[in-house]
């Protein structure tokens, strides 16, 4: 191994690289194939932690738990970007260097290829003995005419397929009186290669463009309720840095019903949201949204991403006044839709605020071994809840998660023995809270749909770039790179043709082309199978 020398001060006479020299050296390294290869391998290696470790953008809850559970490794991996691999500085550095390498490699090659296409191809080599040859064969016409016939076979044919598959041909008259034909194909291969790499850059640019202008929002809509497309109406909303909220098209979606069908074993069969879609100033239209069938609205799409139950509950306070009434979104926790939800009742006329932690069992079954839901359909819906009194902590002005109860200033409602009371309600039932605190009624059980709205103006560009990538790639790998040469000389009045061909080792079909060319020159039919062999 040669030692790496930054600059050769040992030999005073040796030229120094200097600043510009160094820049040039670095650029040459970055654009070298070896470095590109190492960067590719690094890219593959760097991606792997992104599938093994929990990632913030993919699963924030799991990542938070991971950091909390691992007091050393959690914060360490978080700080070094391993919990957001694909947004980390080092991952970005690898792919940006790779793209720099790619551009540095293909830009000169594109220029070279352009010049190469306008230059005549290289003449036939003096000696063909280094290559796989054919002939000699006798031809019935003069050398010029024999090669003209071969040339006609090789040159681009009519139609664009023929044009793409043809050979570039040159014919030279040599000093020794012989006539030499050189034919070459391979420009499509290089062109495809350039298109492929350029399209990869286009993919990256399209993704970047999309990241800047995209927007995405999630909203939960209960059956019978409506939703208007405005930033404030979403439960969560995120957008690219150049997105303008006034671009939102203020359409309205009313969820008329949500169909969820399950097999007898509780396996999901089909989810479908039946909605009424209203564009401003237009007539309402009935639409269906299901998994794999988003609703398209302008450049945005509305996806059905989830569903569940939102029981309608009414809470009366100690004075008998309705303190709360409406649907409460419960989140499904398992395949049988055992769902949990939280009811917060801050507006009581007398006494302390009320809070409830509730679990819904759509098909409740109390057996000898287990209590729970056995099927996601609402055959026997039962809600179990724990009641709390105290301060819900809503006045602090800090936004609260609607799915959790802040128990720091709440105390559970207890029975005479000091045990927390579990209330159990079937659909339509009302239960009184202990100590005359009030009552809870389970009125109805509508479903809700979780909708995801997303617009990404880069999609058409991305698709175009992707298709070009694929076409370029296929061309660069499957178009052939072949050279065919024929030499015809006059040997005492008869024309003798010899030929040779060259192609990379994996391309066995070049022999077929040579056979076809030399047969044409000799004025005979090509050997059977030549055409077929050529395709290999």
């Amino acid at each position: 191994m040669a030692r790496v020398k930054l600059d050769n001060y040992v030999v005073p006479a040796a030229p120094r690289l200097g600043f510009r020299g160094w820049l040039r050296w670095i650029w040459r390294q970055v654009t070298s194939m070896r470095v590109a290869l190492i960067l590719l391998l690094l890219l593959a290696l760097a991606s792997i932690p992104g599938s093994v470790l929990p990632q913030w953008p993919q699963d924030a809850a799991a990542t938070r738990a991971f950091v909390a559970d691992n007091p050393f490794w959690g914060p360490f991996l978080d700080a070094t970007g391993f919990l957001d691999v694909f947004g980390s500085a080092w991952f970005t550095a690898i792919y940006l260097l790779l793209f720099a390498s790619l551009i540095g490699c293909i830009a000169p090659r594109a220029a070279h290829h352009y010049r190469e296409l306008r230059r005549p191809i290289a003449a036939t080599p003096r000696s063909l003995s280094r290559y796989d040859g054919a002939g000699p064969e006798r031809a019935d016409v003069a050398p010029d005419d024999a090669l003209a016939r071969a040339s006609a076979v090789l040159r681009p044919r009519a139609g664009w397929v023929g044009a793409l598959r043809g050979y570039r041909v040159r014919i030279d008259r040599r000093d020794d009186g012989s006539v030499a034909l050189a034919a070459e194909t391979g420009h499509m291969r290089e062109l495809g290669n350039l298109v492929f790499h350029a399209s990869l850059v286009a993919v990256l640019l399209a993704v970047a463009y999309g990241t800047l202008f995209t927007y995405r929002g999630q909203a939960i809509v209960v059956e019978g309720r409506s939703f208007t497309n405005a930033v404030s109406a979403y439960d969560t909303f995120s957008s690219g840095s150049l997105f303008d909220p006034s671009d939102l098209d203020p359409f309205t979606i009313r969820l008329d019903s949500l169909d969820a069908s399950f097999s007898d074993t509780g396996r999901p069969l089909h989810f479908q949201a039946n909605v009424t879609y209203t564009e401003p100033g237009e007539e309402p239209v009935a639409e269906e949204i299901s998994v794999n069938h988003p609703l398209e609205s302008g450049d945005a799409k509305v996806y059905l991403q989830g569903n569940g139950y939102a029981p309608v509950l009414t809470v009366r306070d100690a004075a008998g006044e309705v303190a709360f009434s409406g649907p409460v979104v419960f989140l499904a926790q398992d395949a049988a839709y055992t769902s949990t939800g939280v009811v917060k009742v801050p507006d009581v006329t007398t006494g302390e605020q009320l809070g409830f932690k509730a679990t819904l069992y759509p098909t409740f079954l109390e057996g000898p071994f287990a209590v729970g839901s056995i099927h996601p359909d609402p055959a026997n819906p039962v809600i179990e809840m724990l009641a709390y009194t105290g301060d819900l902590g809503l006045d602090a002005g800090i936004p609260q998660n609607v799915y959790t109860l802040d128990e720091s200033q709440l105390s559970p409602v207890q029975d005479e023995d000091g045990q927390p009371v579990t209330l159990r309600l079937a659909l339509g039932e009302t239960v009184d809270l202990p100590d005359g605190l009030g009552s809870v009624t389970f009125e109805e059980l509508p479903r809700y749909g979780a909708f995801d709205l997303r617009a990404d103006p880069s999609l058409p560009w991305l698709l175009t770039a992707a298709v070009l990538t694929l076409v370029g790639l296929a061309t660069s790998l499957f178009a052939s790179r072949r050279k065919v040469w024929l030499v015809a000389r006059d040997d005492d009045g008869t024309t003798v043709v010899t030929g040779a061909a060259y192609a990379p080792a994996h391309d066995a079909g070049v022999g077929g082309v040579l056979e076809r060319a030399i047969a044409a020159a000799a004025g005979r039919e090509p050997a059977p199978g030549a055409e077929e062999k050529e395709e290999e």
Partner: protein
Amino acid sequence: MNVTELSVMTLWGATTLYAIAMFAYAIRLARVADEKVAAKAAVAVPVGAGAPADAPLVAEAPAASSPVKRSAKAAGIARATTLVGAMLHAVGLAARGIDAGHVPWSNMYEYTISGSFFAVAAFLIIQRRRDIAFLGAGVTGMATIALGLALTVLYKDVDTLPPALQSYWLVIHVSIATIVTGILTVSFVTSALQLMRDSRATGRRWAGARFRWLEAVPSAAKLEALSFRMNAVGFVLWTFTVMAGAIWAEHAWGRYWGWDPKEVWSFVIWVLYAAYLHARTTQGWAGRRSAWLAIAGYVALIMNFTVVNLFFQGLHTYAGS
């Protein structure tokens, strides 16, 4: 016999025939190597200086030596059992599809039975054009293991498609992914043989008499050319798979790429095969190192089918069931 039983029984039949084919192909390899060595020793055939060293493998041994072609008999048995095995395999696959009422590639059991079918099919199709019998033992061996594992460990009764898979993209995206797996399996066997053959040729490893069967395998350079063609097809189809997957993801989940574990590994596979293609044309990397990269790509592909399905949480989790 109902259609479920028909599927399972034909698949077991295919497994058995592939196992027989594997032994027959292995015996053929050993015999070809014996014949080659015997021919060399007996006649000291004047392999002319001009002839390329690795030209005809099974040199048309001069008639004098041995009741020629004991290898041909083994080759005949191997070909026939593979072909009949593939037919039974196709019947088993079709019966599974009819039984389930959807394409037979929606869970791991189904991926495995269809992926192994496409591997054998790719082998048979290429064999129509060129003699690649030396790959037979590896391909049928892997098909035997895959089918055996599928029928014993991975087996799942037919079930309806979950809503997320109710899309024509299941036909496009997953079928191409499964076909790629088949093609790259054949290529993997080729690359592995290439490395072994190369090691033997240079005397590094596998040089002993026990590995004399490697003499019946073409030169490393020829194997490289063969595996390149398959890898090229595989890489283009894998690119298509990833793109089709992105389009489907955009349809179903509202984003075309989200670094789900399956997507991460699809990306890793793509990058590894891209590295392989670059390595082929890089000085110092062509040959052995690029072959190792192709093998790494294949290992990642299998990881994506197995480890990622079974152990990583992601949106593709139904694949594990």
